[in-house]
């Protein structure tokens, strides 16, 4: 800067001009960086944060990119993001399809974290929420195709809680059962073992960040059967018995349709010789059997 050669009267003016120039230049740089930062805080779907990681926007403020979690992971699954990767440079992640989290009981990665980026209050690895497994492709999942692959279900560290097999009738064959893997978000830790083990060329079940995977009911929604359970009984007046208004001499049976009342048959009784109606005749056809229990 050459302002010390100027006469004294103009030094303040010069100072202000220099400051303005600097503030504008650096401000522009800051604006660019800030916008870049906004882009980089959206985690790509294949990148899963270690257990206990804070929500993404907080994580990128808390993580100091030291790599201690990477070092203390006994299975070496974690990487630090390189500058060209579409997330905050230097932050840790793993790719489930390459190497899933082995869910160590002592959670060494969280213990190693010198900041709160990996939440130290997480002491039970089964409570971690690294992401959520989603059976994303129904067209290639072998169980959906009618096979008993079941691998995702078998390898799940929280078997029968995070993934269950729900039997459904196979409409294609008409006589077989599909064992549909169903992920339950309350138990799934997002470790990615299912994605790693999926035998198809590209995994049909994938772990994705929670914000991608999870929907949310509106706050005012109430699930009737849960409210009923909580209250210990029905919260509404018992439903009136359903009646069909039929032409004389006709009757209607769910699943069978209209028929002529057999001679001498009473209106409301089951026709003689006919198959008795399903015990849960008020449930629509095709509902998974798991939902057809007594609670509905």
């Amino acid at each position, binding site marked *: 800067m050459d302002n010390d050669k100027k006469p004294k009267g103009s030094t303040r003016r010069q100072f202000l001009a220099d400051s303005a120039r600097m503030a504008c230049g650096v401000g522009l740089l800051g604006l660019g960086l800030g916008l870049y930062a*906004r882009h980089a805080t959206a985690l790509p779907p294949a990148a899963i944060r270690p257990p206990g990681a804070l929500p993404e926007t907080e994580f990128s403020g808390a993580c100091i990119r030291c790599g201690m979690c990477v070092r203390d992971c006994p299975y070496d699954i974690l990487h630090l993001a390189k500058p060209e990767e579409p997330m905050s440079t230097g932050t840790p992640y793993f790719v489930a399809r390459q190497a899933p989290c082995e869910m160590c009981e002592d959670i060494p990665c969280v213990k190693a974290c010198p900041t709160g980026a990996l939440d130290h209050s997480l002491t039970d690895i089964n409570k971690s929420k690294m992401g959520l497994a989603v059976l994303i492709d129904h067209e290639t999942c072998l169980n959906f195709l009618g096979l008993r692959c079941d691998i995702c279900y078998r390898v799940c560290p929280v078997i029968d809680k995070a993934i269950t097999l729900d039997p459904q009738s196979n409409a294609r064959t008409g006589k077989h059962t599909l064992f549909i893997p169903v992920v339950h978000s309350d138990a799934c830790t997002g470790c990615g073992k299912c994605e790693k083990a999926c035998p198809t060329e590209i995994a049909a079940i994938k772990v994705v960040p929670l914000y991608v995977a999870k929907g949310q009911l509106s706050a005012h929604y109430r699930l009737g059967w849960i409210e009923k359970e909580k209250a210990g009984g029905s919260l509404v007046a018992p439903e009136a018995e359903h009646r069909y208004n039929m032409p004389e001499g006709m009757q209607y049976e769910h699943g069978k349709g209209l028929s002529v009342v057999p001679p001498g048959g009473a209106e409301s009784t089951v026709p003689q010789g006919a198959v008795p109606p399903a015990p849960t005749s008020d449930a629509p056809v095709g509902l998974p059997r798991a939902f057809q229990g007594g609670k509905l």
Partner: protein
Amino acid sequence: MSALPHKPGAEAIAEKGWLAAHKWLLLRRTSQVGILLLFLVGPWLKLWIVKGNLNYSYTLNFLPLADPYLLLQTLLAGQTPEKLALIGVAIVLLLYLLVGGRTYCSWVCPVNLVTDFANWLRVRLGLKGGAHLSRTTRYWILGMTLIAAALTGTIVWEMVNPVSMLHRGLFFGLGFAWAVILAVFLFDLFVMRHGWCGHFCPVGAFYSLIGKFSLLRVRLPAREACNDCMDCFAVCPEQQVIRPALKAINGTGPVILDANCTNCGRCIDVCSKNVFTLGWRRGADQQIISGVPKSAPK
């Protein structure tokens, strides 16, 4: 700058011998490379003396060290670190209050190896001139990074910081960080003399703020022996720091007090008159004491 009449340090080599005229440079390179090696033997030989990187490291499962600039950004982003990181910051702050803030730049930072090489090549190739910018730019950038951290809630600077990018990259995978480092190298070589470390780097700017109060300083016990050969000026990465102490401007004592002196010690090496030495900051404000022996003990 006008062409130098001779190669800086030639007189010192003739007077003191090559080794003595490169003592601090050799020590400094040993420190820089040694620190890198300490970090590297972990991933290379699975010998974990130090884990982590310059942002935060844990030595022998005992000694935490953390970068105060980074922790400040975390705090501004609204996050509170755990105990070990806070202890680490306290240790680092105390250390640099003792040995001088920007000592980090010349004795620890890996980018210094890159920019020193760029400057060495610049001199060898006889490249002169280039862009000029105020050395206060780094403080503006420092301020900007802190404001950006507070506004966005993320550590914005860490996404582009060449210092941590290089150091982390060496042990965790470089990726395209090499391109960033190459850009810094080429910038220092062709565009601006001491461009990155001397003008832009907010990490260095932050450490210079610690260095305002630090104790270890370059002293000039024999400043009246100066023969104005300008060698110290030629090798100094922060040339503006020498003159006040050397020429007793406004009664400055024989101690370099400028916060941007990196304590690299190169001026001590290249001075054939042994004007410089390393010592404590005491007597900084006193006038020069006459009659100091010409060859002051190291």
